[in-house]
Every structure is written in structure tokens, then in C-alpha cells.
């Protein structure tokens, strides 16, 4: 079996008495979409924070392509190939869509300490950014400021920025959040092809989307993973059904 791209080993993190993440181990294999689901308050956001580096774990390790990245900063992890999108769109508001993508390209090249050449005359950056915007269908909105884009367009721009990083793995935090059914359908069909570029760790509330995209699903409840398996296995899992169809319902 191939080595995992992303490997979470026994991650734990408590906030006071609350164990937000409790001994979570999980792998992301090459070419797969691994979805992380769970009811509200299950600890999905904390886990995303632990993986991206925003939150330091009390115990456990994060490995990316055979390298222990547990002690690294958010920026270093991103530079090593962790391409995340945010649950609440987090873009550079005064920059146009194109400049948001150009900034990601610039960051990926690792050349931010350049003081002379104007960015906007850098054809390489500009053309590549345009091409990426075209892929997500935002090319017509390239010169619009991120703050002015619609919610759905900002979700797409989040994906475009992640694409520009050419990451070793994607970390998508509720990419469908707030999208209508049409927008969700479009994004699902886009994400179906994305995993060929790099595996996706997907946190998502929309169950239909998860069942259509995921190769494997892990179910997180009260900070613990109670089950990991294929779509069919998870659907058939009695414990998962109890959590989702019993006393708790997904938002």
C-alpha cells in the first residue's frame, strides 16, 4: 500500500475540561477524497485547526508526506503543500479576484521579498491566475474586488486560491457552506476531478455532497472518530445511524 499523504497520529487537544479532539488518527491516501463528518460541536473545526497549524496539539503528531510537521507554523505548513480553504471565506478583501490568486502564486514560488518589479507587470503571474480563475468559472469576474463578489463567487475564489498553491493535499473546510443547490451541484462536479491533482480532506455538512464525493468517510463525535469506512460501510454503520438519525441531527 502506498504511503499516506497526510497522516494524523493520536491528536488530542483539550480546552479546559472539554476534549475537543480526543486521540484522533486518520490518513489521507494519494488520489482519495476523505470526508470528515460529524454533528455540530463534534470538533471538526478544532481538528482542522490542528492540521493547518493554527492550534497546537496537547499530544499527537501531524505528518505530511513522511515529514513531521507538528511543530511548524501555519505559513511553513502551507509552503510545504497544505492547501486549505476556509469555512468562512477568508480572502484579501481589497484585492481583486485575480490579485488574490496572484498572491497565492507568488507565495507558492516563495518570492515575497522582491522589492523592484511591479506585480501587475508580471505576465507569468497574471496569465496563470487568469487560467486558474477560468477553471473555476470566475474569469469574467477577475477584476472585481473580493469584498464585492457574491457569497458563491467567494466560495469559488477560495477554491481557486487553493488551486494556485498546487498543494500536496487539499484541506477543504465546508466548501459548500451557504451555497444554493445549484451552486453545490456545480462545486461537487468540480471537486470530483480535483482529487486527481491532490487528495482532499473534506469537512462538509452537506451529506448528499459527501456521499457523492468521498472515497472514505470518518465520523467524528465528541472529538473522537467513531467510524472510518467507505460510503456504504458508513451508511450501514449502526452507531453512525444512531448519531445522525437518533438524538442528534446534522445541521
Amino acid at each position: 500500500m502506498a504511503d499516506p499523504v497526510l497522516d494524523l497520529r493520536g491528536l488530542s487537544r483539550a480546552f479546559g475540561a472539554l476534549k475537543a479532539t480526543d486521540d484522533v488518527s486518520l490518513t489521507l491516501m494519494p488520489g482519495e477524497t476523505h470526508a470528515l463528518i460529524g454533528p455540530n460541536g463534534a470538533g471538526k473545526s478544532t481538528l482542522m485547526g490542528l492540521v493547518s497549524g493554527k492550534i497546537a496539539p496537547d499530544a499527537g503528531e501531524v505528518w505530511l508526506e513522511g515529514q513531521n510537521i507538528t511543530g511548524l507554523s501555519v505559513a511553513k505548513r502551507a509552503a510545504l503543500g497544505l492547501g486549505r480553504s476556509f469555512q468562512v471565506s477568508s480572502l484579501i478583501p481589497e484585492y481583486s479576484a485575480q490579485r488574490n490568486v496572484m498572491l497565492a502564486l507568488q507565495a507558492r514560488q516563495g518570492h515575497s521579498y522582491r522589492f523592484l518589479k511591479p506585480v501587475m507587470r508580471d505576465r507569468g503571474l497574471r496569465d496563470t491566475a487568469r487560467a486558474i480563475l477560468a477553471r473555476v468559472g470566475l474569469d469574467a469576474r477577475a477584476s472585481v474586488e473580493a469584498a464585492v463578489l457574491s457569497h458563491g463567487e467567494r466560495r469559488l475564489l477560495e477554491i481557486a486560491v487553493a488551486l494556485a498553491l498546487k498543494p500536496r493535499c487539499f484541506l477543504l473546510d465546508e466548501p459548500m457552506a451557504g451555497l444554493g443547490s445549484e451552486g453545490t451541484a456545480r462545486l461537487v462536479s468540480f471537486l470530483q476531478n480535483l482529487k486527481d491533482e491532490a487528495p482532499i480532506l473534506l469537512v462538509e455538512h452537506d451529506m448528499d455532497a459527501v456521499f457523492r464525493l468521498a472515497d472514505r468517510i470518518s465520523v467524528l463525535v465528541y472529538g473522537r472518530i467513531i467510524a472510518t469506512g467507505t460510503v456504504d460501510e458508513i451508511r450501514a454503520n449502526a452507531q453512525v445511524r444512531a448519531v445522525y438519525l437518533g438524538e442528534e441531527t446534522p445541521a
Partner: protein
Amino acid sequence: MDNTRKEWLLNALMALALFGVPLWALMANEPFIITLATRIAILAIAAVGLNIALGLGGMVSFGHALYLGLGGYVAGIAAHHAFNGTPILAGIPGTNQMLVIWAIAMVLSGAIAAIVGALSLRTSGIFFIMITLAFAQMGFFFTLSWPAYGGEDGLPIFVRNQFPGLNTARPWDLFLISYGVLMVALVIFAMLRAARFGAALMAIRQNPDRAAAIGISPFGIKLVGFILSGMITGLAGAMMADLTRFVSPAMMAWTMSGELIVIIILGGVGRLFGPVAGAAILVGFEVFFGGLTEHWKLWLGLVLLAVVLFARGGLIGLIAGRAQNG
């Protein structure tokens, strides 16, 4: 006409006016006006420096008077020893050459800014403001209690430092030097802002989490911005000392830091010519209203209030609209 065009036209007009008015004063034999224009230019250089930190990087430094004063004391001390023919430290002679003094002022200011920045950039918001203020106050009280160079009485520069090919004793020559340096400072600001460094710095101001998530470490970029900022303000300090032929701890006083912030807010935060517009407004107020009443700062305060409440983009924003970042 789009906003970018408007702003460039406005910038060109201001650059022209700042040159044309003293040129007219030269013909009309009004040296006082030339000196006023020189003061505007030098204050504007200081504010261009602060504009890198505050305007591009969102770092509200309430201690940039420290660099202004550092530059001033470099000029004063160098001139003092050159005049007396005594060494500064074991064998190092003083100098009366502006170019040498500027280089020393910039290197020293940059080094101090590196230390201040490395410590204070670990904080943000009100804490950053307070720490930068604290460092400037340390400089203020140090110079105040340092008897070797005048202490609280300050240090006069008996003969203005020299610039190759020009007679710095003449107001017009000193104006030309200041205007030239201001233009160079503005070009540097514009280049930084347009380059990858500026793109990263402005992005960090707007959303540091996003910048980190795509692999741009905010701390390093901000620190470099802070150092460049301090260097340019330090250069302005050396020139200011030569203009007034006097340095004193007052150059490092917190009111001076506030004045630099006021200049930027009046002119337009982050705007290329914001410092020029702001410095012109400040000096204009000082001269015209200062002649009418002792309490001219009250009126300046009201204008500042109006700008903050109704015209957040300062004078440039009022005329040329919002900044376009492409």
C-alpha cells in the same frame, strides 16, 4: 476619469506646486516661503517612511519620532565634532558631509527599528501602539539626560552640513536637496507598493490569517517593512536637523510621533502622496492660523476630527476616491 487617473493627476499637481511655489518665492526674494516648502518636503519624507509601516502594513507605530530623533542626533553629533575638530569615539572623526550623515542615520535607524520591530511585532493593536511609544520615550529620556550633547537644551549645528556641488547655506539649494530626496522616497514607496513585497505586506494588513494559510509568514514581511519605514524617517530626521540647525530631545517627543500620524491621516493613509498633502496641510495651518491665534492646534484638531468622521481617505481620498489595488 477613473480614480487611478485622478490620483496620478492630483499627485502630479502637488509635485508641481511644491516645486513651483518656492521657485516663485526665489524670484520674488521670499526666502521664508522657500524654507516653509523645505519643511513640508522634509516632514513629508518622514511621513513617507511611516506610511510604509502604517499605510501599507497597518502597523500603527506611535513611536516614529524615535527614528526622526536618531537621524537628527546623527547629524547634530557629526556636525558638532566636525566643527570642534574632536573625534566622536576613539579616532572616529566627525563629518559635515550630508551624504555620509544620511547613510549613517539610515543604517542606525534601521538597526534600531529592527530591534524595536522584532520585539513589538509580536503584539498587535493597542499593545503594538504602546510598545512603540515606550521605545520612543526611552530614546526621549535618554537624550534628555545625556549631558555630552546638550541634554534638554539640545545641540546647535553652527554651520549647516555640506552637499557636493551646492551651497546648503542658501535656502533654495537646501530646498532642492529636500525636494529631490522626497521624490526619491516617493519612488521607493511606489516601487515597494507595486512589487511582490508590497502585495504581501498589504495582504497581511487586510488578512494575516489568509496570508499565513498560503505560506506568507506575516512576521518577517512586517519586520522588513518596519525597518525600511524607520530608515526613511531617520533620513528625514537628519535633514530636519540641518534645516533648523538644531537638535533636541523634542524631536523624539511623543507629540512628534503623533504629528507624523496626523500628517498621514490628513493626507490619506497608504496613498502615495498622502504624506505630501498632509505635511502641506499641517505646515499651512501652523503658518496661517498660527499667525492669527495661539490656539491653532484646536482648529487642526477639528479638521482632523472631520477627516476621521467624514473623509477616511484624507485629502487624496476626498478628491481621487478610494484606492484601487487592482
